[in-house]
């Protein structure tokens, strides 16, 4: 399944947040959206997931979601959003229960997805006992178990320290390499964008418009921390964003 955005614009209380966004999210690719703070990245993601209607333009879902897909558009949140009273397995099971998947089927699916995210040993652990990185892996497992057509990731690594972030990026890459998934990945971190993105969409400051779409041909599994060519791309992205970010920053101070 693909997502297509056509002329999406939106405002809150007379203040324009997004303007004329045209964007394609092709199947099997990770599209990163970067931009200065307050540029409407998260709003855009909410619209893709259908949590919000754009004032202008439309968000189209093209093609069918896979047959065994339980929740076509699935979010991964910055703050993990795990139920603290449920174990790791219980948190994954939560999203299956409403689809009448229980008992043996459910435990097989949970077992499989925990294995893919290397959480098998922690099935009966409560979230409070887990580190931030582990918590986000549980959230990723919970998203994978519904076999989403598109994963919508809202700064999933922003709450983590930089080492954990590296580890999780490796995890995401190996998950994608094994079974490519479609994802929209919103971040303000350019290093994440050049590691994970097949395409990187740069938004301008408010009102957010697409400034440039950068395509990275290098396969995900070949990318590594500190690759020279990625550094070049990252520098290019930063140059695109620098003036915007500075202006956005000044705007915030000026109210």
């Amino acid at each position, binding site marked *: 399944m693909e997502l297509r955005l056509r002329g999406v614009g939106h405002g809150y209380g007379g203040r324009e947040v997004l303007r004329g966004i045209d964007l394609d999210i092709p199947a099997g690719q990770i599209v990163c959206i970067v931009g200065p703070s307050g540029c409407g990245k998260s709003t855009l993601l909410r619209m893709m997931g259908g*949590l919000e209607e754009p004032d202008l333009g439309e968000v189209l879902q093209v093609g069918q979601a896979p047959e065994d897909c339980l929740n076509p558009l*699935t979010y991964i949140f910055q703050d993990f959003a795990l*139920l*603290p*009273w449920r174990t790791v397995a219980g948190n994954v099971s939560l999203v299956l229960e409403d689809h009448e998947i229980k008992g043996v089927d459910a435990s097989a699916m949970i077992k499989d997805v925990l294995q893919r995210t290397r959480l098998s040993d922690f099935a009966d652990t409560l979230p409070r006992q887990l580190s931030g990185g582990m918590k986000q892996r549980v959230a990723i497992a919970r998203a994978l178990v*519904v076999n989403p057509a598109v994963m919508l990731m809202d700064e999933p690594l922003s709450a983590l320290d930089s080492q954990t972030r590296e580890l999780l990026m490796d995890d995401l890459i190996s998950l994608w390499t094994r079974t490519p998934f479609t994802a929209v990945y919103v971040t303000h971190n350019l290093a994440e964008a050049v590691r994970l993105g097949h395409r990187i969409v740069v938004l301008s400051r408010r009102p957010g418009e697409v400034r440039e779409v950068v395509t990275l041909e290098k396969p995900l599994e070949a990318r590594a921390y500190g690759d020279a060519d990625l550094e070049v791309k990252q520098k290019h992205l930063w140059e695109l964003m620098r003036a915007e970010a500075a202006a956005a920053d000044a705007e915030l101070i000026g109210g």
Partner: protein
Amino acid sequence: MTRRWVGFAVFLVLLLAVEWGTRTGFISPLTLPKPSDVLQTFAELYSSGLLFQHLLPSLSRLAVGAALGASLGIGVGLLMGLFSFIRAGLVPLVAAIFPIPKIALLPLFVIWFGIDEGSKYALIAFGTFTPTVVATYAAVDNVDRTLIRMGQSFGLSWLSIVRKIVLPGAMPGILAGLRISLAIAIILLVAAEMLGAEYGIGAYILEAGSLYDLERLFAGVVILSVLGVLVSAVIGAIEKRVLNWRS
């Protein structure tokens, strides 16, 4: 472990100080009774069978009244937390009845529900109801919004979100509210029994008070304290079971 005994130690030191004071005459017998005499009175109360004659009606009043008030309170509080329309309608009403001293309404309840058990149940229920409503409603309101949004984004049904996210999330607040509500229930139980009951801890204390029988008065007060500690321990045990996910 050692912390637990500090509480006992405080009790013990106070009791021993009073015992010493009353024995030496430092505290006059008109001010405080001798703790050992209170204990003896209590033993007599027990052996004469009077203890249960007073305790059982009190306990049943407390159980019926508090159960009615707490369950109604949790129910209404949940509705207020879940539906903004109900909340808008009931918040002013709850704010209006919360500060009313419920004891002042006892004469009214006697007319409405009769002089027997009915008015006592109603008084205790009403007194438990309002703090439970406020605590439950606030607890539901305080459930982490991101968890609810997560449930919605995974397409969970409304009922599932309430059952699996809102209710467990509100549980700590609801239980904390029950602690307060049940203490208030005990206070109102005594008040109701003082105003019109043949048997019951409140009646027993009132009778002892009018005869200036300090030993019996204190024996009654001790029963109330023990009751309070027991109720609190029961809620503590429930919290330990239900909220074991908290550190």
